């Protein structure tokens, strides 16, 4: 089973051979390194750019305007912030030109904590990314989805922000990418660049096949009836693990891997929340003006009289960075124990009854406060 980084690499390989991908570029993306997380090793159309994030986004826009299909990388999301106005332009060129031009491009960037990356290798970006209209935003949680979402992003006619988790880069998938060898050691031998001189190395690509994860489609990774947990990226692992543990306690949690953060798969969320009437959103971005607040606001508007308990957001602490020391990082972004406890708490907190008991008298509501 390929790792997450290998899933991205295999997708880029498939896309340059079959889907018209013309350029994969960014800092250290081309040979010899092939990306700081190895996600672009062996890709024929990969090349190294100047250390210039704004220029990278500008180059991607220009390539797309001229009919190319670029995947540009910002080496870490922590360094994407000086490109915000370029991202705004990519997001608005179709709209501002009334459809005269579109910019089909993919910006991929590693996000999140979990590798003890200190202040400038731990940022999340989804709350800002989803605040840029005109972009689609995806955040895969496993190698197969990383593969399938990358292919869908490359063929999409609109700009896509592809948020890849640093923590997950070396995590092996549980499902085979169609066409990949089942043995990871064999895959490593065939497509991982050797240590040392790589000047004569060429990958021996497996015959991977077309496999798309549609943009805008979430995945229900655990079915349950007591609580809806909405998450994505690396916290899918934590939430799934917690759901499995809570099942042993008789608590049934439904875990939804959003996969695409915009546009949101509202039908899947609605079906689940209508069933469980309890909502928890889990991510690691800082909690103030957090993307999860948008999900909660929309769901609250729709299910206000049906929700049994207040919807909850478990997110990162609203502090300027993630400290490198283990206790600091653990205090800053939700850990497994936080996820487990919060899921248990939201699932078992006494509910305010079924929808049929609403509305409560106003004084009763104030009395509760």
């Amino acid at each position, binding site marked *: 089973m390929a790792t997450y980084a290998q899933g991205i690499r295999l997708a880029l390989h498939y896309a340059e051979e079959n889907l018209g991908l013309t350029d994969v570029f960014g800092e250290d993306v081309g040979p010899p390194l092939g990306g700081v997380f190895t996600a672009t090793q062996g890709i024929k159309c990969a090349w190294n750019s100047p250390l210039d994030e704004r220029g990278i986004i500008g180059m991607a826009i220009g390539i797309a305007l001229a009919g190319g299909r670029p995947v540009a990388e910002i080496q870490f999301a922590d360094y994407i912030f000086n490109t915000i106005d370029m991202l705004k*332009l990519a997001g608005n060129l179709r709209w501002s030109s009334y459809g005269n031009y579109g910019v089909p491009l993919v910006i991929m960037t590693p996000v999140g904590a979990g590798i003890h990356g200190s202040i400038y290798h731990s940022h999340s970006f989804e709350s800002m990314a989803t605040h840029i209209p005109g972009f689609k935003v995806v955040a895969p949680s496993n190698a197969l989805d990383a593969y399938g979402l990358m292919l869908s992003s490359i063929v999409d006619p609109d700009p896509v922000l592809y948020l890849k988790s640093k923590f997950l880069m070396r995590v092996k998938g549980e499902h085979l990418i169609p066409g990949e060898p089942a043995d990871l050691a064999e895959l490593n031998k065939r497509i991982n660049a050797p240590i040392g001189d790589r000047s004569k190395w060429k990958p021996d690509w497996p015959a991977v096949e077309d496999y798309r994860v549609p943009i805008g489609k979430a995945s229900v990774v655990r079915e349950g009836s007591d609580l809806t947990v909405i998450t994505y990226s690396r916290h899918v692992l934590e939430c799934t693990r917690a759901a499995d543990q809570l099942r042993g306690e008789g608590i049934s949690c439904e875990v939804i891997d959003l996969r695409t953060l915009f546009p949101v798969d509202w039908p899947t969320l609605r079906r689940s929340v209508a069933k469980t009437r309890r909502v928890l959103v889990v991510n690691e971005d800082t909690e103030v003006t957090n993307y999860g607040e948008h999900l909660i606001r929309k769901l609250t508007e729709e299910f206000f009289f049906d929700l049994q308990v207040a919807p909850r957001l478990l997110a990162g602490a609203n502090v300027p960075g993630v400290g490198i020391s283990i206790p600091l990082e653990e205090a800053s972004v939700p850990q497994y124990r936080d996820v487990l406890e919060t899921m248990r708490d939201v699932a078992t907190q006494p509910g305010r009854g079924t929808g049929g008991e609403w509305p409560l008298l106003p004084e009763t509501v104030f009395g509760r406060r």
Partner: protein
Amino acid sequence: MLDRATKIKIHDLMVKTRCTEETAISMNKQGEGFFWIGGAGEEAFGVSLGLQIRKGQGPAYDYLHLHYRGAPIAIAMGAEPIDQIRQMRATATDRYSGGRQFVEHFAIPEWNIVPVTPTIETQYLMAPGTAHVQRRFGGEGLTVVTGGDAGTAEGDFHCCLNWASRPGEELPMLIVVTHNKFGISTPSSQVQASRELNRQAEPFGIRNSMHDGNDVEEIWAALEEAISYIRKERKPYVLQANVSRIFGHSSATGANRVPEVDCITAFEDKLIKDGIMTRSEIDAVWKKWKDHLKECLAQVRQEPLPDGGDIWRHVFAEPATV
């Protein structure tokens, strides 16, 4: 050397542009358009450039990343004044932006004029992308990017020079700075040490030159030489054109006539002196375009504004893929 017919054509396009700009300014002053900005004063440079563009769609042809003073270039390429008037009035018939953008924000895919962006200097970051595709494509197509002197203070200009001159990856780009001596109200002499911004290209090994952008013959020849070099050598060139800002920065600073050299008047004096046109012929050109613009405005006044529900169009590709 410019022949007689080309000089007459250049003059015609310069006047056509100026009449368009003056109509837009007048619309703003009469409350028929929210904001004016444009290329009045840059006609000598812009028309000379527009007429030397290889116009078409795709990497075989030239790409243009214009800033918001690009009307002389676009009109010389064939853009119709009425479309500018539509954008000024923000009508539903505005073919460049559907009533969404300020005037002078062209977007003409069939001529590779990519959307003009109001953000100062970001066009210098996008332009290497189209040039990169052209370099790979081959042929003689080039990318033109224009911007003003004030915007070169942004790092994006420096980045453009760097991207364009990477060893072995040099890009076929005409990088233009139109120097009008101001950034809105701030004189460039207060905030930039050098007037010769083109010389910023020198550490990058990029050929460059500075010219009087108000002199048709000088700027035409300079553009011809630069463009010929880029088409053949597939390398960048930085050209600074010193121009006037004949109505100031924009309607935000009043859009009133300022006492600077007017390239059209200067060109007309020369045309008369050289026996190419008479005063009455020149007057006829002005009347032709003034009358045309009056007709354009009357037509545009009849055209509808966009429907509010239209805001949801073109957020994403249509039909929607998701």
